[in-house]
């Protein structure tokens, strides 16, 4: 009997471990919550939240093409030649523009090379709110990855919203592989 219980416990422990590994492994590579420090202490909370600046003022390519675009460094100085010019953080920006040695931001969101994503289709065509994928940016002091940004997350949304044109998503698979992978 003892042996049986022992075997049962061992089996349960093994099963639990397996389940734990599987659950954990599913998160490998998703990076949800990734929040690296940035070379310039830029606050989205201040700019997007309190000042209510339009996202596309800085992310200038979001309605044009694949990438939203990291704002050109010079763009910061549109305001910051007047505002807070003495801040040590702004000085870094000024210095980058003067010297030509550009700021190297730490990238937060990224999709693998084999997945094609186009900002313009979501911003321009579908008129989605940026927050839908990027979370409450207006509350983020330091920006972080809010959603999983994995394939299941993409497909779920596309299924639920039924946003794509009919021929694209009628089939039960939720879309053709080479809508994104090519």
């Amino acid at each position, binding site marked *: 009997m003892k042996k049986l219980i022992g075997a049962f416990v061992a089996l349960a422990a093994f099963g639990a471990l397996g389940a734990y590994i599987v659950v*954990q*492994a599913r998160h*490998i*590579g998703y*990076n949800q919550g*990734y929040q*690296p420090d940035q070379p310039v202490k830029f606050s989205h909370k201040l700019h997007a939240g309190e000042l209510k600046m339009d996202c596309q003022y800085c992310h*200038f*390519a979001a309605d*044009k*093409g*694949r*990438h939203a*675009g*990291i*704002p*050109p*460094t*010079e*763009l910061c100085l549109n305001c910051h030649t007047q505002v807070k010019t003495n801040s040590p953080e702004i000085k870094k920006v000024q210095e*980058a*523009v003067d010297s*030509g040695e*550009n*700021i*190297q*931001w*730490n*990238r937060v969101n*990224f999709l693998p*090379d*084999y997945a*094609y994503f*186009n900002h*313009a*289709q979501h911003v*321009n*065509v579908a008129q989605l709110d940026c927050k839908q994928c990027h979370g409450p940016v207006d509350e983020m002091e330091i920006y972080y990855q809010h959603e999983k940004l994995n394939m299941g997350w993409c497909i779920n949304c596309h299924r639920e919203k039924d946003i794509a*044109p*009919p*021929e*694209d998503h*009628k*089939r039960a698979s939720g879309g*053709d*592989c*080479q*809508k994104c*992978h*090519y």
Partner: protein
Amino acid sequence: MSDNKNDKTCGTSCGCGTPVEGYWQDVENKLPTEAKTQEFADGEFDSFSIKKDRRSFLKIMGFSVSALPLTGCVKIPVRKAIPYLEKNPTQYPGVANYYSTTFEGSPVMIKVREGRPIKAEGNKLSTVTEGGTDAQIQASILDLYDSNRLRSASIDGKDVEWDVFDNKLKSAISKASGKKVLVTKNVTSPSQLKMIAELESKLGFDHVVYEPVSRYGINKANERAFGAFAPNAYFLEDADTIVSFGADFLGTFGNNLQQSRDYSKRRVPTNPKGLNKHIHVEAVMTLTGSNADSRYTRSIQSQRAVLGSVYAGITGDTAGKSKLSEADQKLADFVVKQLKSSKTSVLMSDDNNVDVQLMVAAINKTLGNYGKTIKVIKTDAQYANDEQFNQLVKDMAAGKVGVAMFLGTNPAYNFHDPKAFVEAASKVSTKVSFALSADETSSLCNFVAPDNHTYESWSDSMGVENEVSFTQPVIQPLFGSRMAMETLMALLNKEGTFHDYMVANWKKNIYPAIGGFSNFDNFWNKALHDGVVKVDRMFKEVSYRNVSANASANAVKNIKYGEGLNVVVYQKFAIRDGAMANNPLLHEMPDPITKATWDNYIMVSPSFAKANSIKSGDVVKVDAGTYNVTLPAAVIPGIEANTVGVALGYGRTRSGKVGTGMGANAFPFATFVNGSVDYNTSFGKLTKTGAHRGLALSQTHQSMEGRDIVRETTYEKFEDDNGAGNKPKMKLPQIYPVNHQLQEGHQWAMAIDLNTCTGCSTCVVACNTENNVPVVGRTEVHRRRDMHWMRIDRYFAGDEQEPETVHMPMLCQHCENAPCENVCPVLATVHSSDGLNQQVYNRCIGTRYCANNCPYKVRRFNWFNYDHSDEYARLALNPDVSVRSRGVMEKCSFCIQRIQEGKLKAKRERRDLQPGDIQTACQQSCPTNAIVFGDMNDKNSPIAKLLENPRTYSVLEELNVKPRVNYMVKVRNKSEEEA
């Protein structure tokens, strides 16, 4: 397939008993070769695998399992995002810009992503090319990124700054005694011509024009007959009959893009002007010859004799008439009859003999072709002069030349007597080379001033049809080079850039005569935007002066030829004169005729091979007395029995990682006769060496195995019934359920016209660059592991001396009932709702079942991680297409990235997709518009209409796999009696 060919039964042991018509099973003996199937497997499983025993298996298994959990511990690397410092208002990340420019005289559009050029396309606004390209244009981007390019100016092998270089060169020039010479290629740029004129007048330079393969014969003949040292411009759309003596006008002769465009328009059998009749007489099989309705294999002597007889028949001057063999007489009579009976015609020859060209001119004059199908246009352009350059080499040898500058020319490699040139060069104290990368000539020069690549330069060039095409840089110079014209400006003590010079020249000298613009800036912006502009004033058509060709005909008749085997040198479509020999894309492009890659070889006829028991791949030595080469033989039909052909452009001794040392140089086989370089009249002998070097062929099986893969008919039959020759030959029992339900939305399909496709293979290179298809190299191609998503199958039929050829582009057929999909165990290849057969790289585990089950053999397996590590070459990769890794199957995707881009763009613009919004890379590159792609559900689209055409069929229709790629029956303009 026309019915007139002898029916035989299928030669394989399959027992199907289906008749095989005409098409050959095998090039060398026209018999089924069962032994070959065994050879296929050779080298497939090579020694790179580890020891295959139980212990090593367990070791590796254990290591893999224990390493697995470690993958969970890996921290993602920090990736940097670097923004622009300043925003460029015309550039958005991820959005391509297109800029017009020019490559080797052809107007092109360059696709630029984030500042780096990634693809060259034709310029649709050019009326000359109408958007067509050739293989060199498609491969040109890789030359821009060639890491072998020179990085700095140098004097005597030591790198120097440009200002030091300029000062030293200036003082060397001022001190030099003797003649000062600038050697260039053909110069068609008005601004460059002006600069060269200044160099001549202010610094006393002489300008000598040199081309490795000159058209001196034609130009010189035109100088005598028209008073203009200029080439012929052909207008083939207006020609009912085209007779060509060796002129490869679809490939390497003349303005091939314009000629292909015009020719192909008359190859559509429903053209109201009718199908043209193309007669071709040549000694070795060229691309153009393989497209002819009637092709005749004749030695150079016979060609000239037949031409003399044709000259007599047309002009009535019997001076050129000699006694012909029965077959030659029949041919001459046939040509005369054809020319006389057609309303419009053209006769051309690539013979570099001036007298031959004068005869050709006289024939065309008598036929009234000038002004209609041929024009001689006088411009300021300077064309190669064989006599002048040979005189220059003599002067150099005699020590009369003090300064020689070589701009874009490499005579140390491609002069017909390179040894003499090298020796002569040693007598010149100041030699300047403007080479892009170190070459044979630059290694002789004490001053080396690396030139910019075309895509980093400014220029302009006069084409045909009064069109001037602009060259503008699409990227900053990548290496430490400088435009050659700016080096000349430094010598002339001119301030500013060549761009300033060019703008000033246009503003002052050319713009005032062009109307229709409010000011110069408007004109200039439009000209650079469009890339082309019509300037009628620069081009003047000249007319024939009444010269007699009588003496020429006599001279040609009395030419004495050497003894023995005739060695003919020719240009291949991809490699041409070898200037782009360091471009791997061009080496891996299978030659349209031989299907060989990565080498040159000696082409021999099947009858010669049989008589001397030579097999393809046997290394043979061709000795012409003064020069010899040792190369593998290639047994190819359509070669004259006493002639061997050797391709130019190989055997570079200083080119780069790819080009150096490949094959053997054939330029020295050319001879200097009567003031012009003759590429056809070297004679010698062939001996076997006993060695063997297998050719890396992309097509080793020539047979259709009794199936009607290619369907063809004759024009006579077509005129009676537009569906002639399009009856399916076989019917097999159905194994597939009824069609997929794929009727909604967009349904992509393609149609390829076998009549307008010339087999040039430009699409193959276009596909490679668009889809990041790796170059695998000679060994891998030899193992049949080439990665091309698209190939051109070539089949021969009929007589081995004078075969008929068909070219058939073959790519993934996107079958509705795709056999590959059923066998994939991991659903890595699936069908999409818009009718594409899609390959999902991330799912693929590399079983290769799909490739085995593909009836068209179009799937390609990545045996290795192919090299994309070169820091420059990798810049040419298309960022919208994954680079596939080892162990993954891949194949044509119908350019899914372009389909998606087109759809997304239409959505952004809130409109429906229009026909033409989406073009596949192969379709866009095609110089003859043989490929049409589109949505077959859009009833107004060209593709939907083509699918209704009675000429349309699908390959292996009997399998009922329902391909989405359709072909159109080939129609030959050949009468019953001829065949």
